């Protein structure tokens, strides 16, 4: 699909907006609908869109496969790490009240990092599955 001028131009416009919307969903999840899962999927969809238009190698150049694998694991580690941080600061596992002097601010901080962890893992897994499926088609995948 690299040869379609309209798709190329429109996708360049849309992908930046998609990533921006993903970040909005992520960080505004406390106040409106959304959160880590949705934002992760939206950001992964933006990169998958890029991969469909420009071909898998281009997408792999933007987000390398190794980085995606690191993302898959590090998201879970961040989530679990928030729990461990709560333990070290004298609370129970996944207790956010101890993360800050003010319990409500601590809750905010805990939810923020937990959602970041969810975002990273979900985006990583979605991208990895797409890479794996698309990569199996071989070289003719670019025109699909």
């Amino acid at each position: 699909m690299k040869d379609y001028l309209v798709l190329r131009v429109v996708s360049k416009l849309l992908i930046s907006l998609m990533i921006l919307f993903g970040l909005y969903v992520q960080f505004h999840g406390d106040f409106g609908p959304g959160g880590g899962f949705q934002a992760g999927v939206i950001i992964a969809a933006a990169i998958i869109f890029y991969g469909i238009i420009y071909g898998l190698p281009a997408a792999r150049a933007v987000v390398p496969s190794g980085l995606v694998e690191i993302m898959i694991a590090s998201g879970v580690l961040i989530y679990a790490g928030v729990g461990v941080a709560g333990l070290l600061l004298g609370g129970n596992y996944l207790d956010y009240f101890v993360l800050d002097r003010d319990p409500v601010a601590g809750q905010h901080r805990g939810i923020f990092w937990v959602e970041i962890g969810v975002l990273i893992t979900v985006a990583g897994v979605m991208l990895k599955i797409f890479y794996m499926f698309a990569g199996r088609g071989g070289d003719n995948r670019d025109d699909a």
Partner: protein
Amino acid sequence: MMAAVTVVIAGQRNLFAVVILGGIYSFLMATVLVALDAVDVAMTEASVGAGISTVLFLGALHLSKSEEMKPLHKPFLPLLVAIATGAALVYGTLGLPAFSDPDAPIHRHVAPRYINDGPRETGVPNVVTAVLASYRGFDTLGEVTVVFTAGIGVIALLRRLRGRGKGERS
């Protein structure tokens, strides 16, 4: 409308059309969820069900034939099982409390505490986020671990297949 889409999906032999109709079904489902005031779930349904899984199905379709094979058996036994299960589920819904009944058991257990104390205790106006990330933090950790395990499983399965495919070709 959703029923019509389902009937068309069941009758359709062209898998490409089935994938696209599946996406349409997901979008209709998302609008139903919005109508039920479950905006978070609707967003997930629209992005995962209609977006990502459609793309993944198309990717899988690219690897296989795009026409469904003729069924080997008569569809009457599966049809019977499906109808029986559906009837059992409909029978089960008769025992549920009426829609948006404030005295339903689910609204009297922990929900009032979440709704009344959640914003004060967590400072998060969106109750769904507060419950998901804070009160039910362990469950969400489990969910993330499930997603992680799924990703690892896909890597383990497909990477080995890909390596073998390369070996055969060379």
